[in-house]
């Protein structure tokens, strides 16, 4: 994968899967710091529904790897309370579809306690969740809702797309003094990447340029980063040079990196798996058209899911969510103007 780093003196770096990278960040933080603990449904003996926390119960015990009842709003709220006492809880919400159940505590409590108290409190809570389509889980286990939380002042929103990114960003989330929601994508867990031998925190608010290019900037998040990279490789064969930027953190957003890239390429495509309408791409398009108006040679193209719930049958699911060819089409569309 482009953008991975080489170790000093060429020594090979460890390679982790995305799943292992999440686990590694959690485990290192828990080893270092008594204040860090994790809770969530089935994260203990089972190791989480996606296997992320496997083995952690053995190492850290049931107090710090807490299995919970099915109580999303109370889980998040309990995390808030512990965080306000100075602990650094990491709550796992099994599917992001269930963030809808915890939305009150995320939006009205976690995001606002510091503000409403006039700065008396901090809420160093991390909420990890995952979701997405691609394996036919049906409409209630596949939607992407990250855009909702970008709209909420007081929250930070991360959506790392690779193993090294999730490792470094989850670390930063845990040690950030604000509530952070970190989105993972089900189809990324198996993807491997070389990671720094020592965990290096990645600053929240810094985009990653996965690939440089001259003709068009693709701003992509989550699974679509990888689809965008495939599309870019394909486009290159046709002589179109594509820059792929992954904001990684949606709030705060690294507008500068995105806008500078578009000022260079003069064209922009934005791609995510969530529904296009009112998706994160709308915000990116609004920002780019505003800040790079005089540089744009074509309208910003948006790639996202069609405006439907996620259907079950694989042929329909595949049709609804975007893939590399959709990104490629958007690239060609913008370049063709």
């Amino acid at each position, binding site marked *: 994968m482009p953008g991975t780093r080489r170790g000093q003196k060429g020594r090979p770096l460890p390679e982790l899967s995305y799943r292992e990278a999440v686990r590694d960040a959690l485990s290192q933080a828990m080893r270092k710091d008594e204040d860090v603990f994790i809770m969530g449904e*089935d994260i203990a003996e089972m190791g989480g529904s996606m296997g992320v926390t496997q083995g952690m119960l053995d190492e850290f015990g049931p107090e710090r790897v807490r299995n919970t009842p099915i109580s999303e709003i109370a889980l998040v709220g309990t995390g808030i309370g512990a965080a306000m006492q100075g602990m650094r809880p990491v709550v796992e919400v099994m599917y992001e*579809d269930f963030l809808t159940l915890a939305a009150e505590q995320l939006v009205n409590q976690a995001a606002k306690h510091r503000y409403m108290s006039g700065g008396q409190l901090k809420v160093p809570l991390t909420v990890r969740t995952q979701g997405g389509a691609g394996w036919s*889980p049906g409409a209630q286990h596949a939607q992407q809702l990250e855009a909702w939380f970008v709209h909420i002042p007081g929250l930070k929103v991360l959506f790392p797309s690779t193993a090294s990114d999730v490792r470094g960003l989850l670390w930063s989330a845990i040690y950030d003094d604000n509530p952070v929601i970190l989105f993972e994508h089900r189809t990324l867990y198996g993807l491997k990447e070389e990671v720094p031998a020592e965990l290096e925190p990645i600053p929240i608010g810094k985009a990653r340029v996965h690939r440089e290019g001259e003709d068009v900037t693709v701003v992509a998040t989550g699974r679509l980063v990888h689809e965008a990279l495939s599309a870019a490789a394909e486009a290159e064969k046709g002589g179109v040079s594509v820059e792929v930027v992954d904001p990684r953190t949606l709030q705060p957003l690294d507008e500068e990196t995105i806008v500078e890239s578009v000022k260079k390429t003069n064209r922009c495509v934005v791609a995510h798996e969530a529904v296009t309408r009112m998706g994160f791409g709308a915000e990116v398009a609004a920002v780019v058209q505003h800040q790079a108006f005089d540089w744009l040679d074509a309208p910003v193209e948006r790639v996202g899911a069609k405006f439907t719930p996620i259907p079950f049958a694989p042929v329909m699911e595949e049709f609804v969510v975007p893939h590399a060819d959709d990104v490629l089409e958007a690239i060609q569309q913008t370049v063709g103007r």
Partner: protein
Amino acid sequence: MAKVEKKGSASEEQLREFFREMLLIRRFEEKVEERFRAGELPGFLHVAIGQEACAVGVCRALEEGDIIASTHRAHGHTLAKGTHPNEIMAELYGKIEGCSHGYGGSMHLYDVERGNLGANAVVGGGLPSIVGAALAFKFRDEPRVGVAFFGDGATNIGTVHEALNLAQLWKVPAVFVCENNHWAESTPASQHVPITDLTKRAAAYGMEAMRIDGQDVEEVYQAAHAALDHAREGRGPVFLLLETYRLTGHYVGDPQVYRPKGEVEELRQTQDPVTKLRERLGLTDEEFEEADREARELVEASVEFAKNGTDPKPEDALKNVYA
């Protein structure tokens, strides 16, 4: 404990009918496991092997016009509510002949014509709708009852609490069937509920409750009958607690690393509702074989049906978003 008295004992003939149905569910779900392992079934599947008496006992007690809402563990309820195995299997294969026309999948089996308002993949998500449906029955003075299935794990979610409170407050004709299989995925009851008798949850609303052996289909049937009558007669909703067992993993493919060694084997010996009913009826091997053959044939045929079904066109995904 049960102030609502059980009633409507089942005839020998009925029990044999129940047996055939439970066996069909068992064979259907075993086939689902097999086809999943063979890589033929997409998505996320949960079987209710061990809980067949709950589905059959409750659904046989329903009357025409009664409705149900199910859960992520929906095949048994759906079969028991009268949907043909072909339509369910076709749904699992994602075909338009499926009971949700390929839009739903295992966790979203619907059959509205037969009073199945849908399985729900959000724990507790189906209960409020049943309260609302029952409210509509009450508004219209229709002698119908709404039935919601849910698990022990679901009793911890706020949705369920609010729905039960509202149902009792408004005395709507609803029956809440809690299938207590003592697990929520990998989480044993001891890690998710601080009480052992779940009817205490109903007491928090002053709701009538019954606690029943969910492995004995006759008991379930009688209790369900009584609960439905109670609700239908306008005497308020009932919380029907069925003590049952999950004889498999949480989902198809679950290695059950979390489960005490030997638990499943022992439960399969002592708590299999199909075996229990077979013994209760004193079925001869021949009688059993015949019923079994019948069930297997239906299931086999459903796989054939499903495989020969029609894949939706990709663009069909754009339909049915709005009425």
